[in-house]
């Protein structure tokens, strides 16, 4: 049969949703325990929220799902949310700006066009935002929270990579390029083409040297940053930014957090201003985040520091080991000897009572889908039941609901 599903769209089947909920629940529990509160933003936003300079790169804007709404005669387009952070910043500046600190989390879908249709055009993210008066302690909080979620998910071989947008922006500033050349260069780097930086025709040998040093060296401690800062080719502006980065890595060292510094590890940092981080597991990026102190003001709010991160659900789900699948131990199929109304009514009653007792009861008048240890058959319009234990191959005839529950409870594994 020819599929009627849209190109680049995906169905999540029961097995997929089990993993999905597992990641979502783990993430949600950690967020709640760290004092974060959930928000949801609309699927549709005005495109200007994202064109506001420095929020999305031109290449990303070229892949958004934008269109004229039914009342779009004003010529202003709307988009299917291409990113989770920018709407959250808008929500904050419109509703919560009075709060000294806002710790927010969300689970959302984002949309981006992908040419081949082999990858998903609709993806899911679990994200957090920490907005308000925050400093390096917030950067450390976010990294610790992300690592906690990873640990709870059981993803062991994950690698944390750090970079710093402030340093890169200061370096590009040193090149003293025209606005057009700088924008073009930035576009290249944001798409991951770091070689563009070395290709720039630049008379300033010291800056060129500093760039290649930063791009080629990788470090694993704040000592690495101290070394960089001491290099003679590094200018004052860049040193200042390295100092900021080092303040965070020192804190991470003290917290016993392991990381690798790799300046080329970030992409699409258009709205990042400070620390950027990402988590790689099995060669895939499953989480990334950082600091974006200009973002709230760019979407029309006050000048307020902010940072955040997001887990990419599609990649993350593929890596978690599913918890025990549907629990057969606690599952009962409810059947009837006859399909007349009184029999069915009795079956509904007993199913309700079993659910109250903490069991999963699936009605099996025309078939069932769950794997079940138990079955209960209504024998009579009055109360007479056969209880089968498929695990032991035994069966009992009883007359009350309590007896039914008693048999199942007798195995000691029932209850909420």
């Amino acid at each position: 049969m020819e599929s009627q599903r849209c190109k680049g769209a995906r169905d999540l089947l029961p097995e997929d949703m089990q993993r999905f909920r597992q990641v979502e629940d783990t993430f949600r529990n950690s967020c709640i325990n760290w004092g974060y509160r959930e928000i949801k933003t609309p699927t549709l936003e005005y495109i200007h929220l994202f064109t506001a300079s420095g929020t999305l790169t031109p290449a990303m804007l070229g892949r958004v799902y934008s269109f004229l709404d039914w009342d779009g005669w004003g010529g202003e387009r709307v988009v299917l949310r291409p990113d989770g952070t920018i709407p959250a910043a808008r929500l904050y500046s419109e509703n919560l700006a009075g709060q000294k600190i806002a710790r927010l989390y969300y689970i959302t879908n984002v949309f981006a066009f992908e040419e081949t249709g082999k990858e998903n055009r609709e993806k899911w993210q679990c994200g957090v935002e920490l907005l308000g008066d925050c400093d390096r302690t917030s950067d450390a909080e976010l990294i610790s929270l992300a690592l906690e979620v990873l640990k709870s998910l059981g993803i062991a071989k994950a690698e944390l990579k750090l970079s710093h947008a402030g340093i890169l922006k200061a370096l590009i500033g040193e090149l003293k390029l025209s606005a057009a050349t700088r924008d073009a260069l930035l576009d290249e780097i944001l798409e991951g083409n770091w070689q563009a930086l070395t290709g720039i025709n630049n008379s300033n040998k010291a800056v060129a040297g500093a760039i290649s040093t930063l791009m080629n060296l990788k470090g694993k401690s704040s000592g690495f940053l101290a070394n960089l800062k001491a290099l003679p080719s590094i200018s004052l502006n860049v040193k200042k930014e390295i100092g900021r980065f080092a303040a965070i890595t020192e804190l991470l060292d003290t917290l016993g957090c392991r990381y690798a510094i790799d300046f080329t590890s970030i992409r699409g940092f258009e709205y990042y201003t400070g620390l950027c981080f990402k988590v790689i597991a099995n060669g895939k990026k499953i989480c990334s985040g950082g600091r974006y102190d200009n973002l709230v003001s760019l979407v029309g709010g006050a000048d307020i520091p902010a940072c955040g991160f997001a887990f990419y659900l599609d990649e993350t789900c593929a890596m978690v080991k599913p918890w025990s699948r549907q629990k057969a131990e606690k599952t009962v199929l409810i059947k009837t000897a006859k399909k007349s109304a009184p029999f069915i009514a009795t079956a509904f009653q007993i199913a309700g009572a079993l659910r109250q007792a903490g069991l999963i009861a699936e009605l099996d008048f025309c078939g069932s889908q769950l794997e079940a240890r138990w079955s209960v058959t209504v024998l009579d319009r009055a109360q007479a039941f056969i209880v089968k234990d498929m695990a032991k191959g035994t069966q009992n005839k009883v007359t009350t609901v309590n007896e039914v529950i008693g048999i199942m409870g007798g195995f000691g594994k029932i209850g909420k």
Partner: protein
Amino acid sequence: MPKGKLLARTSEFLTATGLGFDDYNSKTRIYRMQSQTLPALTAKMLNERDIPVQVAIGNYDFGICTSDWLQELQARYPASRVLKIADLSYDLSSIYLACSEASNISPQDISGRPAAWRIVTEYPALAEATACKMRLKRFRIFPCWGSTEAYPPENADLCVLRVRDEKALRSLNLKPLSKICDSNACIIANSDSIQDNDFSSLLKRFALSQKMKDKPWQVPEKALAAISNDFIARAPADNIWLALADGHQQIHTAAFLEKTGIKLVGYAKDNMQRRPSSSLAGVNIKVIRPQDMPQQVANGNFDLAVTGKDWLLDHLYQFPSSPVTELADLGFGRVRIVAVVSEEVPADSIDSIRELISRGKMAPLRIATEYVNIADKYLRDRHIARYRVIPTWGATEVYLPEDADMLIENTETGQTLARHKLKIIDTLFESTACLIGNRRSLELPFKKAKIERLVKIFREAAGKK
């Protein structure tokens, strides 16, 4: 092969290739042609803007058009299956982002200022890509069918348009802010088709003509006299704006205005100005394309406009909450908007077409039309199971039967359709010229009286025989 302004030089080029398309000349009324040299080669004449789209979707293997429309298509759909195989180096021009000489805008302003820039253009995808690249914080794009230069500065801040060079741009009273790209005539090909087939005998002929010493098609043409676009800073804020049609509606509109007794200078075939002056106090007049008027009125760029009911409805079907409304039926320019199929289709109504599709005797419908929203609503309301609307820029008759299965077209007498062996299976509605207005301008006290006075004059004139 292109119709219109590219035809003459393309014809010279094709003559040099010796392909024997003898009917392809400015006087032709035939749209389908057969090469006298290569028996397997046939060609059709389309509006040049439609050519890259038709080549990309695989209806044609090759096309000749100007590269601006190719770039517009690729800006909108980067994965389009079309590529340029040769530049023909005529119709040289450039696409600019520009503003009026009279406005005080610099390239730094447009990315710096948080204003919502109004951009009018025939190239909405290129304009959007440029706006994103230049990091405009906020912008609104008004796609238009033409007459782009008429809008700034009063009715748009910026425009993206094609001109021969900067000098030509300046002569339109516009100043360049950024050159977006160059454009010239070129040969394009469908990228799948060229990978899978042997076209060497055709390509050799293209190459041969390119090597010729004397290339008459590359001799620069004389510039055509443009409609005067002088900006006159005269619009007091409480004046109202009236839009009048250019193109072939101009004669009919001018004749109607004569009946109203309104005296106009600069709205005659031999003296066209973008901003004609009139005997009406408190009214500014501008000449633009009738297709673009409803959206311009909706946005308050104009208070009143003389356009067709067809274009009003196309706009309202797209934007049901638009504040544009018909204020007077002017009675002239009567056409029928009809659904048309090839004479060979064994159906005489839309119901029997639906029947054929549901019984699997007809493939999902492809509808070629200039009225995208009218067509979409018509097919949706008739419960046609699966259909595709192919937007075109005119000369729609030629699409049937190979490149489309149905047209939604306007017709006066039906003769053109019959000549192309097409039949009408349904009349959607009758369209006449009408005066449209913006309900919101009618609520503005300083505009209300002026608008009502003008509406009264138009209604009375429409009542006269």
